[in-house]
């Protein structure tokens, strides 16, 4: 699986794609594979403040709940309503199924995130491959 090079990644398996001052956030293909069939997405409302490293919502598969950690600090400016009725879209295409859009209050936080290569190394270590 190719991890988009223009995205940045967290060790909790979120991705963020930044355009200007807005970051679009989702979970990685590795995350959706581990979760299995996704049946529920719990996302915050527009206007909610999120903190880097803090839980902003959750994704549920049939057998498990997985917390979502925000890669950045800021304000939620968009929520992907499609996932309300069709959460399984994350399984089909995790890297296009965005969950929230965040207006960044501290863009320098992006520097601490993983590049695609570093993320791939990270999951290779996790799976012992």
């Amino acid at each position, binding site marked *: 699986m190719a991890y988009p090079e223009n995205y940045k990644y967290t060790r909790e398996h979120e991705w963020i794609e930044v355009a200007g001052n807005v970051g679009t956030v989702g979970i990685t293909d590795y995350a959706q594979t*581990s979760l299995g069939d996704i049946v529920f997405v719990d996302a915050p409302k527009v206007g909610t403040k999120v903190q880097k490293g803090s839980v902003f919502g959750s994704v549920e598969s049939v057998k498990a709940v997985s917390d979502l950690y925000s890669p950045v600090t800021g304000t939620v400016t968009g929520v992907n309503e499609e996932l309300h009725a069709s959460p399984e879209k994350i399984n089909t295409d995790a890297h296009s199924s965005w969950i929230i859009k965040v207006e960044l209050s501290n863009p320098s936080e992006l520097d601490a995130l993983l590049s695609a290569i570093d993320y791939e190394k990270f999951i290779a270590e996790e799976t012992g491959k």
Partner: protein
Amino acid sequence: MATSAPITLRKTALNVMHRRMGAKMVVFGGWDMPVEYLGLIAEHMAVRTGVGLFDVSHMGDIQLRGPGSLDAVQHISMNDASKLQEGQAHYSAMLYPQGTFVDDVIVHKLSDNDYLIVINAGTREKDFHWVKSNVQRFNCHANDYSDYYTQLAIQGPKAAETLAKLTNVDLSSIKGYWFKWGTVCGLANTLIARTGYTGEDGFEIYVPSDVATSERVWNEVLEAGKDFGILPCGLGARNTLRLESAMSLYEHEISDKINVFEAHLDRFLKLEKGPFTGSEALKTIQAEGGPTKKLVGLEIIERGIARDGYAVLNAAGKKIGVVTSGSPAPFLKKNIALAYVPTELAVVDGEVAVEVRGNPVKARIVPTPFYRRPKKTA
């Protein structure tokens, strides 16, 4: 995410096969088991609409043999084994003296001198020691045969047609909860039981547990079921299937702290057969007004998924009970749960709430099982 497995995990004979097939593995009751292969939902649906294959070799098999076997079984099991005919099995449980559960079991009568008790994976050692020490005064011998068998469950409306390709036994002559011996995949004297844990028609077969035989039979069943869309199924689907059918899971609906009346399993309790381990405590509970809490089925009616261990709340937001098992139901397409609530609230159509990560989500008490398979007209 997953970390490296601890050293003393137990494995079935099909462990390498499961890994070779790309199964996601999980630790269950000390066993390294497949949780899903293609996907939980696909596997669940295969069992409900076609056929699925499970490796359930982690379960245990205790055989009681000798002239005193029936007396021994009657002493440790709450159902009435004297009502079993040769070739018949029934659901039961072994109880502690206080009327709570050692384990739930399936008792099979092989002959007047020979009973097979199939027990859960996580309780194998505990159950065997329990049986051995409790049957000492009877003229019988208890043997742990668990490691001798690879136990496969073939479940679904097409299970019979699948298994029929592999055996000379006329499967229509085996009714639900009965069993026969016959040749399966060329193996003579194989136990074929019409039992299962899915709520569908199906069979459990017991074959020798060497890797070569186990893998051969596994592959032959998958081949035989190809026309019906057979899928190998893991513990994930096993759990959602048994939950839709409201079947109990040890340490969830039943445990050493829960009694038979609370667990709503008293239809399998035969106090009239005479005293047995747990009977006196249960009679006392009955005489004193019955259980103070009861197991009910919940359908979640607001947006949210109830999960094992979540609190059940009343309308005022006060905790009144607990979810023992909760999950989305793939076939029913609802979110369901089994839960303990106070007896006075255990009424169908009653409304409660489940606390889902800090928020109350409304749920309605519904009859169980949530799912009943369609009756065959043929």
